[in-house]
């Protein structure tokens, strides 16, 4: 039993007071304050948005996060490196494998181990597949938030092809836990490459379907065009990353700009940007990126090098003292781990930079003056995963 320090008591009291303050504002403020969440269908998780309204127009709004805080940064301090892998899987639960990669890379950097090329290529393939699993759901979900029911089911249906392939290779649909320091747990199973190529074909068909069904729809355009415009400079100021930033016209993609040993630069692909910065642009960029990901996977599978999938690593992993920062371009944006090791079985401290946490900070800026229905459009188009916000 650990004694609670005064500082912890104070922090607890402060948190309670902050919560109470918001509730008091809701009760007593002039005008109408609309409390959306923590349980609200549009936040697909437990994000709370307190919006002051004038009629249906939002005067100001504030996102309140932390309802799903799971204390990962603290938890990893009492775990060993292989155990942490399982834990960080759950941060962005739709693109699990992509969460493992930067942490493993940071650990490898500290241990000065390089995974063999085949492992790096398979990592890239699985990384892009988790992007597909993540973003394809967005393509359906955004339409669902705008009231179209059917695309969501199409997304769930076709995402299954990708999840099946991830399961075939790793044994886990959602949380593969497949990455190891120094390589991968296993090689790919027999026949997997051909099956995956078929699945990629299906994903491209899905993209075409979505483009037919949604992008050309007048109502969808009317709801999205010019709604939630974020200029590139503002997006950068708020630390937005990923597709949200690219939709604001900033040509910035860590996969291309920051080589971390994975195989993106070995294949031919394109970083899509859109100059508008509105909700439609964010949807469009993600759709193109889904297509691009299928192409990346196809090319990687064609050129997969032979060899082992695991480098020589000691049986008990002890990471030498030091600090390392590695970030990658995850489905939601830049995700990075700052690992501080003191030479133990587990890290001394890990700072997790997750994409959604930073992407959501633009909400008060972008929501001023929009209508209540647009709040949903903008939230949906910013695309966050609550696990990625609260960690």
């Amino acid at each position, binding site marked *: 039993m650990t004694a609670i320090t005064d500082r912890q008591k104070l922090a607890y009291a402060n948190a309670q007071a902050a919560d109470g303050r918001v509730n008091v504002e809701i009760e007593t403020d002039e005008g109408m304050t609309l409390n959306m969440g923590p349980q*609200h*269908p549009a936040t697909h998780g437990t994000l709370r948005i307190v919006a002051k309204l004038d009629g249906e127009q939002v005067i100001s709004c504030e996102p309140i996060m932390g309802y799903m805080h799971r204390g990962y940064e603290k938890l990893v301090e009492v775990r060993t490196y292989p155990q942490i892998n399982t834990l960080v899987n759950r941060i962005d639960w739709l693109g699990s494998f992509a969460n493992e990669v930067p942490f493993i890379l940071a650990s490898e950097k500290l241990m000065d181990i390089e995974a063999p090329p085949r492992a790096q290529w398979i990592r890239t393939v699985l990384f892009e597949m988790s992007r597909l699993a993540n973003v394809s759901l967005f393509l359906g979900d955004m339409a669902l938030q705008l009231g*179209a*029911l*059917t695309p969501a089911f*199409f997304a769930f249906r076709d995402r299954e092809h990708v999840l099946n392939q991830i399961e075939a290779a790793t044994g886990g649909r959602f949380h593969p836990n497949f990455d190891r320091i120094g390589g991968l747990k296993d090689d790919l199973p027999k026949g997997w490459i051909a099956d995956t190529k078929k699945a990629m074909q299906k994903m491209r068909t899905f993209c075409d379907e979505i483009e037919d069904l949604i992008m050309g729809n007048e109502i969808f355009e009317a*709801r999205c065009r010019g709604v939630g415009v974020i200029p590139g400079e503002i997006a950068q100021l708020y630390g937005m990353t990923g597709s949200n930033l690219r939709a604001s016209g900033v040509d910035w993609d860590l996969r291309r700009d920051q080589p971390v040993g994975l195989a993106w630069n070995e294949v031919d692909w394109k970083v899509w940007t859109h100059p508008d910065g509105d909700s439609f642009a964010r949807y469009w960029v993600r759709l193109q990126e889904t297509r691009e990901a299928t192409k990346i996977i196809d090319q990687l599978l064609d050129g997969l090098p032979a060899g082992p999938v695991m480098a020589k690593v000691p049986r008990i992993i002890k990471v030498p003292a030091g600090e390392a920062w590695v970030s990658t371009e995850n489905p939601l944006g830049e995700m990075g781990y700052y690992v501080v090791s003191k030479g133990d079985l587990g890290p001394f401290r890990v700072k997790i930079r997750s994409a959604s946490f930073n992407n959501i900070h633009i909400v008060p800026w972008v929501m001023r003056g929009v209508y209540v229905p*647009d*709040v949903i459009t903008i939230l949906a188009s910013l695309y966050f995963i609550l696990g990625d916000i609260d960690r």
Partner: protein
Amino acid sequence: MTAIVLSYWQQTGIKVGLTLLLIPVGALILGWTFLLKMMSHMQSRLGPMDAGPHGVLQLVADGVKFIQKEDIFPDRADRRVFALAPFVILMSTFLLYLVVPVGPDLVAEDFSTGIFFALAVSSLSVIGILMAGWASANKYSLMGGVRAAGQLIAYELPLVLAVVGVVIQAQSLNLSDIVRAQANGEIFGISFLGNPFVITQIVGFLVFLAAVQAELTQTPFDMPVAESEIVGGYQVEYTGFRFLAFFMGEFGTAFAFAGIAATLFLGGWAVPGVDPDSNVMNVLGPIALFVKVMFVSFLIFWFRFTYPRFREDQLQKFAWTILIPISLVNILVTMVLKVAF
């Protein structure tokens, strides 16, 4: 054979009983066929399959479930208004059913101004929705209720204007007469089909369908109940059988409006090639009307499952700048042609 003579209260009892029976039956038929099955197949999934063969009893099971649920009143709700609201909506649905003829002799009340009556009572549901929205003491409910009121009033106009063309052509406000006018009519001397007004009044038909879609608060006009924004709008605080009443009101009204659309534009209970006033039509008529109702409902639900929803301002703009001018032009053209031919 001697005619069976029934006293006034017996007749009224039978009429009311049958009409009351029709609402849940219609709601169940539409709910199962379209909401459960058609939507599932459009979305490449099966839908509920376990209750009864192919899941036919799913909605009955759901209904039983709803009745078992606790009837919750919010703390600050206006209890009487809150309790009454769903039944005001059901009443409007019930009144709609009264005037739709299903055969030459099968009509609950054959008003000489039937269509006028139908359109008038259909807007009664606004009162129920506003009551529900206000009495729930919930901001989402209130927003939903106010949105619904604005929308239903805005779309009442194109609904009425779309019907005017039909009335001009049929020269009657009586729904049975409108059916006969279509069955006995001819288009440029071609008379084997009669003259279903969907051909000459295609613009009116489309405007009517769009307005019906909005009156039923179905996607793309489902802003008042938008689940992803205001979490069901005016229905958000309702549980148990009151929620069931809302459900029945929505789908029962869809059934009734499909019936009215079929009567106005698709020839109602008439079947081409059969004398509309022969006695056999009292059996054939309901079947014919049912087929047509299912067709119109199919259109309504097809739109519902395909489109995203409009925003409130876009929705109003659509009514006032597109639907109403179009239907006014339609009336004008119909009048000119009616005088010319």
